[in-house]
């Protein structure tokens, strides 16, 4: 035995430290929970993921790849999405939510500017899938299938792809060249596109079901419905859909001086703002009030900024014509009574309140429906396609999604549906039952320790002045500075994911939080952790949680 110095009975270098981990009753674990932004995003985008990449690495390229894992159209969504993610953001209870929408646009624009390419997950499979309609649902479904190696062909009835994004959204909200570049990127994955082909008219539906392993119907709701009032067949009376399609196909419409839009949805807002840019004197007639308007709030705000007149409680009764041209609109006033089936208050006419408004053009933007010409399929309420929970329709192997299934919704919802349909189609072709793991629970403000965050000003995008923007159809929000967005990304709370604040590492009284030499992340040394819970309490983003000892 080695001789020890005087007074020592044990060699201290050989003593194993006392493992205080045995005292523990609760143990800390890292749990990556769902942040509220992703939870409220209809497309399921990894918002925290791309914002953290921006904040930590200032790497727009990686951020673009994170974002396009779910959403193939970031530059488009960054412009037109009503961003429910921002309403979900936990920062709203602290100061103001993050400008996620602007960040998405900046990342999307970066992808277009530097021509980044989508990556394929699986190189090639022999199965073929037909996608009908190249709107957001169809494109998203085709994108996700093509990434998984399927051979996809898109059939589009119009002469250019994009669906309602191309023919419905005016170019001051979404310039055509942005949409076109994004669609080209999707098609580069090896997707075939055939335009000017209407399924059910040019090619029968049976042809698709016979020649393809699966079919996805992303028909959209591109048929305007009217409320059937006398005088509707007069010249210069359009449905909202017709009017926008004409404008977005580059045709000239003589709108005259007085322009009346009937309806309160997004199509109505778009028609009104387009007409304002064409120099008309525009009013929007709606039979309820602003609160009940189904349009996106920001759209209504911008329309109001642009001096568009809103007449509430006004219901058209008759279009007054002279020699087959519109000259006026007879309306009556309504009052609001108890809610109807849709939950909105029910308007009831007031007797003897009829009055005539002069009009040169009338737009009936009162509803949209699916164009079922030549497609036989089971419907719900005689209106929308009915599907099961895997988005499969009454025909085996035919899936559907987007507005044609859900009614009028947003681009992001359609993209989310496309993604869901793509994985359902994959499972259908492979004959698998989808193993759906429940997503981890969502983090809310009450779970966070906001002491460690500082108040910062929210990024706000600057609009072109109203005077300038009404002169042309150019985008009303000019491009966004990349540095501003990185600063904005640094505001992200990173709910439910470590952002290396080092609190756990510094506060552990037992030094039981170590930096892993392999990953560089913080990890628990359970030999010494006494389970006091200090790290979990002081973790700002609720990434550390205490659980029962295993």
């Amino acid at each position, binding site marked *: 035995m080695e001789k020890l110095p005087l007074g020592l009975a044990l060699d201290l270098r050989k003593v194993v*430290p*006392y493992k205080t981990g045995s005292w523990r009753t609760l143990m800390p674990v890292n749990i990556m929970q769902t942040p509220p932004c992703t939870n409220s995003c209809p497309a399921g985008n990894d918002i925290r993921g791309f914002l953290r990449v921006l904040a930590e690495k200032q790497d727009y390229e990686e951020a673009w790849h994170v974002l396009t894992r779910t959403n193939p159209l970031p530059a488009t969504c960054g412009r037109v999405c009503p961003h429910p993610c921002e309403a979900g953001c936990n920062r709203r209870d602290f100061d103001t939510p993050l400008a996620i929408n602007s960040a998405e646009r900046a990342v999307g624009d970066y992808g277009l500017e530097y021509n980044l390419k989508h990556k394929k997950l699986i190189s090639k499979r022999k199965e073929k899938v037909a996608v009908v309609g190249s709107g957001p649902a169809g494109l998203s479904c085709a994108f996700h299938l093509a990434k998984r190696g399927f051979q996809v062909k898109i059939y589009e009835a119009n002469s250019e792809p994009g669906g309602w994004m191309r023919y419905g959204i005016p170019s001051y909200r979404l310039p055509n060249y942005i949409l076109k570049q994004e669609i080209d990127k999707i098609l580069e994955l090896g997707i075939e596109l055939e335009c000017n082909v209407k399924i059910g008219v040019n090619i029968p539906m049976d042809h698709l079901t016979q020649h393809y392993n699966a079919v996805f119907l992303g028909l959209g709701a591109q048929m305007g419905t009217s409320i059937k009032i006398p005088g509707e067949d007069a010249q210069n009376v359009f449905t909202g859909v017709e009017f926008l399609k004409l404008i977005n196909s580059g045709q000239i419409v003589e709108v005259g001086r007085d322009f009346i839009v009937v309806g309160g949805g997004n199509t109505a807002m778009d028609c009104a703002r387009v007409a304002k840019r064409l120099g008309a004197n525009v009013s929007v007639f709606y039979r309820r009030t602003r609160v009940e308007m189904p349009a996106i709030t920001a759209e209504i705000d911008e329309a109001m900024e642009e001096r568009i007149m809103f007449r509430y409680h006004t219901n058209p009764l008759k279009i007054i014509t002279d020699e087959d041209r519109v000259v006026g609109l007879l309306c009556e006033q309504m009052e609001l009574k108890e809610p109807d089936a849709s939950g909105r208050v029910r308007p009831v006419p007031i007797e003897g309140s009829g009055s005539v408004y002069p009009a040169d053009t009338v737009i009936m933007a009162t509803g949209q429906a699916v164009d079922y010409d030549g497609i036989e399929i089971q419907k719900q309420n005689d209106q929308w396609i009915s599907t099961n929970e895997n988005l499969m329709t009454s025909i085996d192997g035919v899936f559907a999604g987007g507005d044609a299934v859900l009614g009028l919704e947003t681009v992001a919802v359609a993209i989310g549906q496309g993604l869901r349909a793509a994985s359902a189609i994959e499972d259908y072709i492979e004959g698998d039952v989808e193993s759906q793991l429940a997503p981890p629970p969502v983090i809310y403000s009450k779970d966070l320790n906001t002491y460690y965050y500082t108040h910062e000003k929210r990024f706000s995008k600057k609009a072109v002045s109203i005077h300038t923007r009404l002169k042309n159809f150019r985008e009303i929000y000019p491009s966004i500075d990349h540095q501003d967005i990185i600063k904005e990304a640094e505001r992200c709370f990173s709910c439910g994911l470590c952002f290396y604040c080092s609190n756990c590492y*510094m506060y552990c009284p*037992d*030094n039981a939080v170590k930096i892993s030499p392999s990953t560089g992340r913080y990890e628990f040394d359970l030999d010494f952790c*006494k389970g*006091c819970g200090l790290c979990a309490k002081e973790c700002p983003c609720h990434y550390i949680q205490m659980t029962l000892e295993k």
Partner: protein
Amino acid sequence: MNEKAEELNRVEKKDLFASGHRACGGCGQALAARLVHDAAGENTIACVATGCLEVFSSPYPDPSWRIPFLHSLFENPAAVASGVEVAYKALKKGPVNIIAQAGDGSTADIGFQCISGMFERGHNVLYVCYDNEAYMNTGVQRSSFTPYGAWTSTTPMGNKTRKKNLPLIAADHGIPYVATATVDDFKDLQRKVKTALSIEGPKYIHILVPCPLGWGHPGDLTVKICRLAKDTGLFPIFEIIDGKVTNVQKIPVKVPVEEYLKPQGRFRFLFKKGVPTEEVAEIQKIANQNIERFNL
């Protein structure tokens, strides 16, 4: 100058006070001891009085100390540290950081005359007081740092005297550096330790260290309680450099003392069915006096 400021503000983690000690879960003193010694670095001698810190960190054969450690009696860590400093001088060795450290009982009551002597003789020693506001090691007896109204085993009806203000007493010895700190702001604490060690002469740092056992709060609240002590004004954070109070940490949002008292078992009897008694008003008065005095 910037480099020096950066050096002072850098957070240190060297694990010189290692895992495996027997402190309770969430112990503020264990946390403070690690932060202090990591800031001081390897070239340090720790002179520790009898007390919790010595008991839980130094049992043979596996002490937590990775630096030279000298255990002294309850009353004399300051005297022992003075001796170490003089011995280094006599042997013409050094320089070395000498940190005398003890709990509040040893500092304020039993060892006070040794500390006063050390300050008066002007030894180049940093004295760190881990203030957990009672004799926790022996079973929560009252010390002269026990705050007004607190329960201890010797003041079952609540303490009737006010806390001794040792930082100011130390400063009145004319020593060059006095500071107060808590464990919640580790950056500030480590900066103060490094600043103190860069100054020649006797220095004093007073650190508030919550004791989950003696204060009666869950171990995970250690840091939060410290923060509340600061934000209520009950524990002012300041430095005294050459007799002048400077770097007073302002309270961002003032918090009523109830917030601080309620999570702690030792103050629980001050609330009758949730309604604060007169003592709470008295504690609020102490907090307000602190706020006024130090302009928090």
